[in-house]
């Protein structure tokens, strides 16, 4: 006989709060690391390949890694989305890549790839968080 799992049963799979913070940090820094940590290796590897590839394509298309200028709200929001990409964003900052070429025909496409890569990584972090809490 099968029974639905209760909240208490699902909570058994939950991890300690400190570990949860570390998990989210790892998931942010290395896309897919949270899933690999939680034993969802197949998902983690796909995220690890797809998200940095999207970020790299965005840079190749002359997209811009936006600075934190909240005097222009859309630039500030785009900067937050860029940061959510994790290690690819850190590397782009260290290597001074992603200055963006406004005159390039692919500039807006590049921005789209860079921003969506970060936002997708945020969804991946939230998914890893849910798995760690035993919700999934």
């Amino acid at each position, binding site marked *: 006989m099968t029974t639905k799992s209760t909240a208490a049963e699902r909570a058994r799979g939950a991890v300690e709060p400190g570990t949860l913070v570390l998990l989210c940090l790892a998931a942010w820094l290395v896309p897919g690391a949270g899933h690999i940590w939680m034993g969802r290796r*197949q*998902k983690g590897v*796909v*995220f690890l390949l*797809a*998200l940095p*590839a*999207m970020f790299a*394509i965005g840079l190749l*298309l002359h997209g811009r890694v936006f600075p934190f200028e909240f005097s222009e709200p859309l630039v500030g929001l785009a900067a937050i989305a860029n940061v959510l990409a994790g290690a690819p964003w850190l590397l782009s900052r260290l290597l001074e890549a992603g200055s963006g070429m406004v005159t390039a025909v*692919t500039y807006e*496409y590049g921005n*789209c*790839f860079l921003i*969506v890569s970060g936002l*997708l990584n945020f*969804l*991946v972090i939230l*998914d890893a968080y849910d798995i760690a809490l035993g919700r999934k």
Partner: protein
Amino acid sequence: MTHFVLLVVFSFFVSVVFGVLLRDHPRQQLRTGAVMFGGFIATALVLGWLLYFFPL
């Protein structure tokens, strides 16, 4: 690269990530990803033709 190729590449990556994120079994992931990818391309083509007939 043409705009259409970039659209296809973008759709591919987003579909892969959403397919894997939303489903747990590889077969379901493949199906969801394929449906999403097809939806992206079809929507872009339909909107493209609509703008041809009704230019902004």
